């Protein structure tokens, strides 16, 4: 009797959808915080963004006659993260453009889930930041009915004294993008992901530590004078480290740590030398482009061989299956 059932007959219960669902769940505390600090518009923006991402993925897959994977929640996670990176004053149409760019151009045109070489959420943000930079730079003071203000890091960049304490920064009571302000709530979500064994916490630590340490060492007034806690808590570093670095754009386990380190160095570089106060977006995207070379550092040895095995080249094609 011919059978289509192939060994092994035991499969783990974890699926792509379950992983992505856990990512979405882990973002909920930060979303709650965003609503508390910035009002209901934060929630509407996030839901809108997630919906646009899922629907544009579905539409693209329908048009190009690919396997429909839009319901696996990966697009929803991208949409939420993208909204989290925007200030609450962002117009809906800008967010819509960012979502479309992230999902269709960055994710699907490169082959869909697993084949995008850069983080779609960050790329979408970069796109609108370049094209409509004025529209997404209006940061507001929390619980203030839209009084705009500079973020902690941009204030620091302009050498003005910020009036926020580190505790306020940790709890999220500062101007900033929707989901990045409350470090406490992001960390709660991240701990959930670590507990579920979904993310590589080491990579997040390497990234966050390298940025904080480098910006401290190369401070504005000489060596070891940087604002360590300000850099750590003032901007989107923790959100970037917890959710963007740990994204599964595959590089090997050790390669992933190098990737985090590279992203950290570039981010710190931007924070120290360039006009941009944050640098997270550029730092991680640049490191994403280095992933191909970093994955060559794979040093798991094949059983019975003396030399180290290298991942030879990245090829797309994870879409196909034999049916």
């Amino acid at each position, binding site marked *: 009797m011919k059978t289509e059932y192939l060994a092994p007959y*035991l499969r783990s219960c974890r699926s792509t959808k379950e992983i992505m669902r856990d990512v979405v769940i882990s973002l909920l505390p930060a979303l709650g915080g965003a609503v508390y600090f910035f009002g209901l518009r934060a929630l509407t923006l996030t839901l809108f963004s997630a919906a646009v991402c899922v629907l544009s993925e579905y539409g693209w897959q329908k048009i190009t006659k690919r396997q429909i994977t839009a319901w696996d929640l990966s697009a929803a996670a991208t949409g939420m993260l993208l909204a989290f990176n925007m200030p609450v004053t962002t117009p809906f149409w800008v967010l819509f453009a960012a979502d479309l760019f992230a999902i269709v151009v960055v994710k699907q045109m490169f082959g869909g889930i697993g084949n995008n070489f850069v983080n779609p959420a960050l790329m979408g943000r970069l796109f609108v930041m370049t094209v409509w930079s004025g529209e997404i730079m209006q940061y507001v003071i929390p619980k203030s009915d839209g009084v705009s203000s500079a973020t902690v890091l941009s204030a620091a960049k302009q050498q003005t004294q910020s009036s926020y304490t580190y505790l306020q920064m940790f709890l999220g009571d500062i101007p900033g993008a929707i989901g990045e302000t409350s470090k406490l709530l992001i960390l709660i979500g991240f701990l959930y992901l670590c507990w579920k064994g979904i993310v590589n916490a080491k990579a997040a630590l390497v990234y966050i530590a390298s940025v904080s340490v480098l910006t401290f060492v190369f401070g504005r007034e000489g060596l070891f004078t940087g604002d360590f806690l300000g850099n750590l808590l003032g901007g989107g570093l923790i959100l970037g480290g917890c959710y963007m670095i740990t994204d599964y754009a595959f590089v090997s*386990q050790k390669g992933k740590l190098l990737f985090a380190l590279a992203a950290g160095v570039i981010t710190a570089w931007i924070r120290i030398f360039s006009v941009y106060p944050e640098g997270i977006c550029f730092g991680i995207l640049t490191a994403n482009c280095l992933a191909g070379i970093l994955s060559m550092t794979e040093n798991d040895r094949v059983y019975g061989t003396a030399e180290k095995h290298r991942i030879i080249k990245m090829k797309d094609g994870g879409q196909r299956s034999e049916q």
Partner: protein
Amino acid sequence: MRGGIHPTSGEDKEVTKEKPIRNFVPDEVKMEGNFFVKKGESVKKGEKIGTDFWKIPLHASITGTVREVDETWCMITGKKEDIDKEKKSFPYQEKLIQEISESAEEIIGKIKEAGIVGMGGAGFPTYFKYETKKEITYLLINAAECEPFLTCDERLMIENGYAVLNGILALKKAADAKKAILCIEDNKREAAQFLQELLNPGQELQKENGKKENQDDREIQILLLPTRYPQGGERQLIQTVLKKEVPIGGLPADVGVIVSNVATAKAAADAVFADQPLTERIVTVTGAVEDPGNYLVPIGTPIEMLLELSGGVCEKENKIILGGPMTGKCVAENWNGETLPTVKKTTSGVIAMLFQKEKETPCIRCGACIRACPAGLAPFQIDIAYLDEDEKLCEMLYASECIACGCCSYVCPAKRELTHRIVKAREIVRQKRKERSEKK
């Protein structure tokens, strides 16, 4: 061992680990191989009737008459009165043999004549391993039984302790090894404890602790290993116990090791000390059956009889698996009494499983397969290379070294059939290498 997984919580083994081995002899057996007996001829249990694929002798597993014989199979109908004969008991089943009178060559000859093959699943002729000219330091007896659900080796050790130990002594002499290590995973602690009492009463069991030397100076040592699949793979076992690796393309003998399954050792004891050929084996029948258990049955026993003996399959939507759930073969879906294959020398289990195939989705590059692979491969990349029909890349990614353990398919959240396709890639690469070496 590198990588590996814990496919189940261990409860699957609890179901049958306490169930004593039951004897069962069917009225009719169907054996596979090349046979020289004629239709209508009467045969006795243990009589040589043909040879198998490896030219290893095959013996009638029951007494009776040849009902039908074809090029590749032979059916024997038994006589009830002959079947229920009492079994003789031998000293090797009741105490440790102090001095084996046979020489190594004699032992190997008896093993060959008795038709003994690796009973763990490979089915490779046992005598072949022992005929090596290489110097053997270690004989590893594989009782890891890392596959979920199976308990046949565990029951064998508990119920035939002396036969197993004497078999190990015989194999050790045949291999001329300095030391034999019986490797048992710690979910079978009771069995290990029991054998330790027979071998070295009152002494504590050694545990594998990751150190280079966890061995004592005894000739036979029982070693408890942490439970992890696929530790019972030959190469993985060598890595865990001896901290050595078998080089690519090599055999365990190249590093001075022979690995044999514990059931093979028992069969060797039967062959050497009682001149009994291999005609029966223990099979674990489990999963969604009414009354799971362990059965001692003649080779050639129809699987459907074993399932009926176990009270039948409880669910309509079942899959009948021969062997373990990780590496076994699905022989029927939604089985409802149809004819199934028969028990072979390598059939360690019959499992009725209930599951639904899930749809394959795109790889998300989470790297779980790389972490799980005991051979250190990158399964998802080989999968992509195979689907691209890029044989060269498959070879560069060492597809040839896949051990088909199934860990990558098990962990894959995208539910990709990694193992299935990597094994295909492996065969292509091996074929290519063979062709290349033939050209030279």
